[in-house]
Every structure is written in structure tokens, then in C-alpha cells.
């Protein structure tokens, strides 16, 4: 009797893990459809021409999305990478920054593949009030510096 009972409990436990795992997967898929996809956006409130930046991001196959904000003297880009490019995250960030610096030599450029920065740049773009933008960008830059 006991043996049967414990085996049943055991199966139940197993079932539990599968449901748990599947649930998480579904959640992941929902998230996936929610906030990624080929999503390249630029918000330009400065006088600079942003088409060059657009080109740089659009043509890089390692990126899955990029949100760039041009504001006064700042350029901040939140990007997401394909799964395996994430191994070279730091290298890609540096490389893109360098390329942008070639096009916009007098700008203060920040490129980050951190998902926090990506989330925040997304919020910046949707911001109606552009007044606080400078402050918010400064805050993001300090966040990135904390990384080391």
C-alpha cells in the first residue's frame, strides 16, 4: 500500500515540475511577443541628422532591436543582442560606440546592451515632456558606470 502511495506522490511531484516549467515557458513566450521583435526606433530632439545612426543599427545582424535617443549633446542607445552575441556584449557595445563616434564626433555617445537601459530608453522615447530628458539621460549614464 505504502509503496503505491509514495509512487503516486512521486509522480505527482514530477507532474508538478512539468507544469511549472511549461508555465514559465508560456510566460517567456508572452514576454517575447510583448517586447521584442525587429524594433529599431530613433527619437531625435536635437538638430543632428540621425539617419547615419539608424543605418549603423539596422545593418548590424547581431542586434535584435535598438532604441536611440538624440537629446541636445547626448546620444544614448539601448540595444538588445541575439542570444549568442551576448557573449561579446562588451565588445559590441564598444565597437558600436566607436562607429557612432566617427559619424557624430562632437556628441557624448552611450551604447548599452543592458536590458535595464533598453527599458529606460524605451520609456524616454514615449515621454511627452522633453524637459526632464537631460536629467534622466544623466542618471542612466551613471547607472551604466556602476557596472564595473
Amino acid at each position: 500500500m505504502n509503496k503505491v502511495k509514495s509512487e503516486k506522490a512521486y509522480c505527482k511531484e514530477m507532474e508538478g515540475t512539468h507544469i511549472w516549467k511549461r508555465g514559465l515557458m508560456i510566460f517567456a513566450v508572452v514576454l517575447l511577443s510583448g517586447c521584442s521583435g525587429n524594433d529599431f526606433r530613433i527619437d531625435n530632439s536635437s538638430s543632428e541628422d540621425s539617419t547615419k545612426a539608424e543605418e549603423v543599427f539596422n545593418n548590424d545582424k547581431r542586434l535584435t532591436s535598438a532604441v536611440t535617443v538624440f537629446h541636445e549633446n547626448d546620444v544614448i542607445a539601448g540595444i538588445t543582442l541575439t542570444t549568442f552575441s551576448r557573449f561579446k556584449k562588451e565588445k559590441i557595445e564598444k565597437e558600436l560606440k566607436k562607429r557612432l563616434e566617427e559619424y557624430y564626433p562632437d556628441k557624448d555617445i552611450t551604447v548599452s546592451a543592458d536590458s535595464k537601459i533598453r527599458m529606460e530608453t524605451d520609456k524616454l522615447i514615449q515621454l511627452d515632456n522633453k524637459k526632464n530628458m537631460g536629467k534622466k539621460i544623466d542618471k542612466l549614464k551613471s547607472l551604466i558606470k556602476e557596472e564595473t
Partner: protein
Amino acid sequence: MVSIFITAFIVGGLICVVGQLLFDVAKLTPAHTLCILVVAGSVLDGLGLYEPFIDFAGAGATIPITSFGNALTHGAMAEAEKHGLIGVVTGMFEVTSSGISSAILFGFIASLIFKSKGKVK
């Protein structure tokens, strides 16, 4: 951004598989296994391989105990970069790990509120 959940699951799971193989095949005690993994994390960071790994797998690389060795080494190396050889020593004492401090704190809280129970299931 989402694939990080999948990589976290897989990479975290695989590190645990390494631990399980050390348990069952190498017949090591849990304490020995964890020490080996911590040293492995530390060495990987010395080679500069652990950080890209965290970028790739997120919590899949920061939650396993290997990240503990990585965090300590990273702190020590950061100090060493600034102050040279002396920095290695001073860095050792400056490095704090949230793992240790939170384990101490929650361990003490748990000892205040819980009692052990010899239940089998």
C-alpha cells in the same frame, strides 16, 4: 531580452549537472563539490571568461555558487588594477559579497523564528 530566460534555465541547469556528476561519478561530498565549483568560478574569472558568461545567461550564471568565486576574484582584480600588488591584499578585504552577508543575516533571523523538524515528507 527573453531568450535570457531560456539561457538562464539551460546554463544554470548545466552547472548543476556538473555538480551532480561530481557527486555521483567522482563520489565527492557536497562540501568538496561546492569548493571545486567556487574555485572553478574564480579561475574562469581570472581568464576573463566568466563575465561574458553572465552576459549570456544572466541568473543562470549568477545564481550558481560559481558566481561566488567570480565575485570575489573580480573585486580583488579590480583593486589590483588600481593599486598593483598591494591591491590584491587590500582588495580581498574590501570585497563584500551579498551572498555571505545575506546568508548571515537570514541565518540569524531563521534561528530566531524556526525550529528543525525531523520530518521525512
